[in-house]
């Protein structure tokens, strides 16, 4: 699972193109630019925020993508609601929150990886005690 995330980043790019193609087929009478705008917004709000969080699970890419859409919806909707009540206009929170959520998830994941990384003892890798519960 070591290279799972970088690999999935390629798939993420592929899934963006796939979504674009799907929407192009479904909305065949629409201008491509309008579909591109929607697809980009969809990725920003419904994929990016929770995508890293889904690395709690060992699941395939499409399943990861699907659950990250639902989780992102919850995180973004709730985040924008509360920030709105605190006086932050939705036009700012919709830009800010995906960065906050994904940065926070990435930070937690990196810290967890560091904590559970195999330690080198006399040139040999020794797994950490809780290695079987790896985030990857």
């Amino acid at each position, binding site marked *: 699972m070591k*290279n799972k995330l*970088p*690999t999935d980043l*390629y798939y993420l790019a592929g899934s963006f193109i*796939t979504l674009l193609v*799907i*929407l192009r*087929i*479904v*909305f*065949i*009478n*629409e201008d491509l630019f*309008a*579909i591109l*705008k*929607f697809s*980009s*917004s*969809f990725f*920003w*709000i*419904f994929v990016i925020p*929770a995508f890293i*969080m889904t690395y*709690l*699970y*060992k*699941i*395939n890419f*499409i*399943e990861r*993508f*699907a*659950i990250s*859409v*639902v*989780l992102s*919806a*919850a*995180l*973004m*909707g*709730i985040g*924008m*609601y*509360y920030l*709105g*009540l605190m*006086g*932050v*206009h*939705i*036009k700012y*929170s*919709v*830009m800010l929150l995906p960065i906050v959520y994904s940065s926070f998830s990435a930070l937690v994941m990196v810290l967890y990886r560091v904590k559970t990384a195999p330690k080198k003892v006399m040139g040999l890798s020794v797994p950490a005690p*809780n290695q079987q*519960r790896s*985030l990857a």
Partner: protein
Amino acid sequence: MLLPKYSRRRIVEAAIIVLFVIIFLSVHVGRVWDYKIEHEYPYYFNANDNFFHSELSYYVKEKGNYDTSPYYVFGGYTDVEGYLPPLLYHLSAGVSLLAGMETYDTTYMVTIMLTVFAALLIFFSIRRVNEKLALLSLPFMIGIFAMPFEIPYAWGLWIFLMGAVFFMSVVWYLTAEKPKYSFLILAVLLSGAAFGHASELIFSIGLIAVYLVIIYFITKKLDQQDVRMIIISLIIFGVISAYYLLIFYFTYMTIQPFTLSVMEAPVFAPNFPVNMDTFGYIQYLLILGLLVAIISLVSKDEMKSLINVEKTPFLLIAIIYVILIGFTNYIGFGVRAFQMRTIWPILLAALTAMPIYTGLLFVKMLRFRYVVPISVVLLLVLASTYYNVHAGTGMMDKETWDAFKWIGNNTEKNSKIFWFYSLPMVQEFSLFSSKRIPFKVSIDDYVDGVNSHAIKNTYNGSIVVLTDAKIQFSRSITNYGYHMDEDLFKKIEVQNTNSAMDYYVFGLAKIDDVAINYNKLIVSKMLESNSASVVFSNSAIVILKTNRS
């Protein structure tokens, strides 16, 4: 090369999923949206709820938050707490801001996109039990066997669909492995349900309880880690959702408390209740599948291995749970139970596919190379058979929408708009699209005028207002008042046209010819008497402004 080689099987599965998504979106949105993603006016708006949810998304987008509700929806009151489930409004407002689309397009688009991905989560839940059964289930999830299944999409039960998305995700969570820290996922999903639509939150928590009971029966003990994770996730969910749930408690739950009552038909569509026979021919597959599922659950040996039920017995229990909550309209869940029935095609797809699965097993054709073409053929056949279940692009037209826009852009915010008989009055919440306080003519009084061939000096009418939570406002976090109880509200409940209104709107198209002619007569008389002037007109709508001396 970073990209791993995916097996041919995975690629074929991915291709079928893509085909499913294309067909699902084409059936539920592409066709009825004229295969365009942006429109000049709302497409496929057929009922009050479509307009209402779209309007709230617009309001959140413009205001930037949902601390209070739009005054023009609540009779002019500006202090009505934002109490409706806020998730959809914020998400569609966000997409609208980023993509530059109108909220009447993004509100439905967000709903349908989330629904299709939730359906995929159910697919993956089934896949964990049996990959071939999952592939055979996918075509049935399109769910267009009859009009009642289309109602949540066509009639705007969109916040219900938001709740349903999280309910389906909780099914996915419970059937998936539960790694350390996955309580965070459950907490987010439950919070999503709370902010999406509270009744599905209740159904989700019920499902979790059923899950614990089933695990206890199977293993004769409760896994301490499972219980601990669920408790932690419930605590986190409580912290995240407490503020909104408090508002919900003092509004909806106080005004419409749970009662043990029986509802025979759904109030949102009395003529379109979903029952087993709504599935048409598919119902026979469904009933057979249910029998196979029950036998496989209770039998000892062969049948259990038939569908690999040992692996995830909970999926079948969850499906049976979904059927049962569909009938909770007999114990007080009323409309919420009927709503859940409308997504049976997705939730019960595994049952529907099970007879095909067992048939293939018995004729020894249960192989991937046979299952794949069968799945594709089923997808195409079901889609083409039921493609035209719901035709048309909705009740709105460009001319009427232009009138709404004109009112919103050119009238004072506190203007009172009196609507004579016209297309939008058919679904009166569409009048909120004018962003002004709408009043509508009393149909009885209007028809009386038509029948007597008389132009009256005064027409009775009433304010159009949402009263499901009695127009509540908060005095403190636990102390709420209700404008519906106040005299002020009673005073504006009934009005007449004696210069009490600022604008009068008349329909000139898409309604009965008699009404069109009668509207024209009233307009002529008002112009002749110089009591009003034309400020907007097109082929569908004419708007008069009261002349004040």
